[in-house]
């Protein structure tokens, strides 16, 4: 994790490099549509509060994203300045502005007048929070439901070494005045009640169930679901190493987080196993670097075929893979097994992190995609009237800022729908 600039002067120097493009590509590439040249101009002029306000106006999770947004795949990847030399460190400038605000006190928002209508938001992760905030700005009363505290992935899955609870709470505290929060498990009955008592509903329950490893031995003791592993690790003091020799299976950010966390918790050896190569990983380089620095070993082109052991995990039988010319739905080459390449790796814990699927049972009421996600149209409307959805539950594992973007856009779709400007 890169720290913000060493000094205010360095920050100003970096901000001065910004070309202040018109119709800036960085803003277009930001799912939350932050006015990047606008807030950088404010850092330049010394108007740091204004810069923080500009960021927050666009992104309800300003502090969270300032800390951990993967700028290399969004704003910074399209920075015009990189055509001259190197891109502007946009996320770091964003972080600098939000850090200033959290240290010097938050600006008081204006009063949002109510329009007399209410929307229920189910799921208090990034998409739900962003949607709730945007709806509040538009005048709606928002009831927010979650089975746990507000925060979602940033609170329960992202390791605390990447995002502290304090940093998360900067955003949650700010946002909490814009909704009524209810901690509740939502089943079908409760969902119908919520549906009937609100003008519209937004579902953003995320992905709460781990995809099981479809191999023998996946039920053995010592096979730990990644989400509960990360959640208990976040809880802090009580968390202990999952084992001495840990194998994490997967090639996404969640698997990297799990591997780095296991290492931090004291596991002697942590191996991340991925069936494709580094190029095919869906991770940001900062996290990969961090995991490597922690001492995580990475076995590319390797897939587990069996977890063995008596009652408890003792090791994993693996096979080497190679990439074929065929591509999967994500456009990445499909891996093929290499015959006769089997080998065993000793381990006393295995953490499968091969993806998550929606878990909430009331989702049965809805049409789903082939992958099991909620089906929505371009306006985030589901198969049920008045009900919209966004975030990971419709798109699969994404980034926080993408969820924020969903939440914001969906709020405007809900607003257009309730104003009679749009069919469901």
């Amino acid at each position: 994790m890169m720290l913000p600039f060493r000094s205010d002067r360095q920050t100003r120097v970096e901000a001065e490099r910004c070309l202040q493009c018109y119709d800036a590509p960085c803003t277009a590439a930001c799912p939350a549509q932050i006015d990047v040249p606008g807030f950088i101009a404010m850092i330049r002029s010394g108007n740091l509060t204004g810069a923080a306000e500009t960021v927050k106006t666009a992104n309800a999770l300003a502090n969270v994203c300032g800390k951990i947004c993967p700028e290399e795949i969004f704003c910074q990847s399209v920075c015009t300045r990189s055509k001259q030399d190197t891109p502007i460190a946009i996320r770091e400038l964003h972080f600098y502005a939000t850090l200033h605000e959290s240290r010097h006190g938050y600006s008081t928002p204006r009063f949002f007048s109510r329009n007399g209508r209410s929307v229920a938001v189910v799921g208090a992760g990034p998409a739900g929070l962003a949607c709730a905030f945007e709806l509040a700005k538009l005048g709606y009363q928002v009831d927010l439901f979650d089975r746990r505290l507000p925060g979602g992935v940033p609170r329960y899955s992202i390791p605390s070494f990447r995002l502290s609870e304090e940093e998360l709470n900067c955003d949650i505290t700010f946002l909490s005045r814009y909704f009524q929060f209810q901690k509740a498990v939502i089943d079908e009955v409760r969902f119908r009640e919520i549906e009937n008592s609100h003008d519209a509903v937004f579902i953003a329950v995320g992905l709460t169930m781990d995809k099981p490893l479809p191999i023998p031995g996946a039920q053995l003791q010592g096979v730990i679901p990644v989400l509960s592993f990360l959640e208990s690790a976040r809880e802090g003091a009580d968390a202990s190493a999952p084992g001495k020799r840990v194998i994490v299976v997967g090639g996404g950010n969640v698997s990297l987080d799990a591997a780095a966390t296991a290492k931090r918790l004291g596991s002697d050896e942590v191996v991340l196993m991925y069936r494709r190569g580094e190029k095919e990983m869906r991770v940001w380089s900062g996290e990969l670097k961090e995991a490597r620095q922690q001492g995580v070993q990475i076995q590319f082109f390797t897939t587990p075929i069996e977890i063995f052991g008596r009652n408890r995990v003792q090791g994993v039988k693996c096979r080497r893979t190679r990439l074929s010319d065929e591509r999967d739905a994500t456009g990445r080459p499909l891996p093929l097994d290499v015959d006769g390449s089997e080998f065993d790796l000793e381990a006393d814990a295995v953490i499968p992190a091969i993806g998550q699927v929606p878990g909430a049972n009331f989702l049965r009421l809805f049409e789903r995609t082939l992958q099991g996600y909620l089906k929505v149209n371009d306006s985030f409307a589901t198969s049920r009237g008045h009900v919209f959805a966004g975030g990971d539950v419709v798109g699969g594992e994404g980034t926080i800022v993408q969820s924020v973007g969903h939440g914001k856009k969906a709020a405007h779709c809900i607003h257009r729908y309730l104003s009679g400007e749009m069919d469901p």
Partner: protein
Amino acid sequence: MNRGVTVFESPDIYPIKNLSYEFIGLEFENPFILAASPATDDLDMVRRAFSVGWAGAVLKTTSVEGTPVDLAYPMMTSFTDEGGKLFGMGNIDLISVHHVDRVEQNIKTLKKEFPGKVIAASIMAGKKDDWQYLVERLERAGVDLVECSFSCPQGNIGEHPGRMLAQSVLATETIARWVKEASKRVPISIKITPHVTDIVEIVQAVKRSGCDAVTASNSLQALMGVDIRSFVPYPQLDGKSTYSGLTGSAIKPITLRTIAEIARHVEIPILGTGGASTWGDAVEFMAVGAGAVEFCTLVMHRGFRVIEDLKSGMGHYLADMEFRSTLEIIGRALPNIISHDDLPRRSVRSHIDEATCIQCEVCYLACRDGGHGAIERMPGRIPRVNLDRCVGCGLCENVCPEGCISMRVIA
């Protein structure tokens, strides 16, 4: 400031800060107005500026029918540092090519569409009748303020081409009286030049004329550079060139001094212009006596959208300073400007913060060859101040690229 592919407008979440105040009998919604320039020569451009929050605009200078406006292109030259960062612009532009009828119509339209904005006109003429005719006509059109250009440094169209009206005390007073005489309601501001031996006697002449304000000041006469192979200066027009009017950050210190000098000696409202590029610059202009600030180069470089930061930055500044009104800034720095003779004499010495020093030794070199040889080289490239040799001139502090040198008072 949403732009590009945004599909919806996200509502603002912060209250709009009140920056409004009264100045020269006019209501300013904020202290930021557009100076007479290409940015104010087109109705749609001014509309766009107003809709994003500019408090007013001085429409590009107009004159009487038949005044030749023979423009030459290209007219712009930039003044940059070695890295290409633009901190000044030169222009050989003249007054508006539009007929005064059109300027008059623009005023009427803008006044109707934007009743809360300050709509000003800039005029320039030769004969008494022409000056007075322009004032009367624009006043009838509903203009809020007339600015008289006594100082266009390039292509002056007065009776002595190349000479500015505001370089003569007599001409300034005479013509200022003419324009003031012609106005019934509208305040008149005389746009002066810093190209004079004594700015005070010029502004005293304006004051005697009864005019309401001065606009201080204008672009500075400059030669923007010379191509050292072809020996053609810039801007280059078929192998020839001429002097430009220099504007932008490069002239800010000169404008500040001009405003301060006027404010210290003449009791007259001042519209500050020439080199302000941030809300902080505007605060500085106002702190030395300006009542409002006009912008041109910043907008020509960065667009009307810069108003967002100007307003936001000013709003937060006022709150930080616990000022209730923008007016509280005006003149606040003036008591702190005194003559060199009266400056306190105290013993100061350079202090280098070793923790933040980046060991470039730029200070060492500057002090050795341009100061007093008071910085010594030490192992590890950490410079050390020899307190016996240091006189406290401050050169090192200003050349340090990391800002780790300060001047400390010694007992």
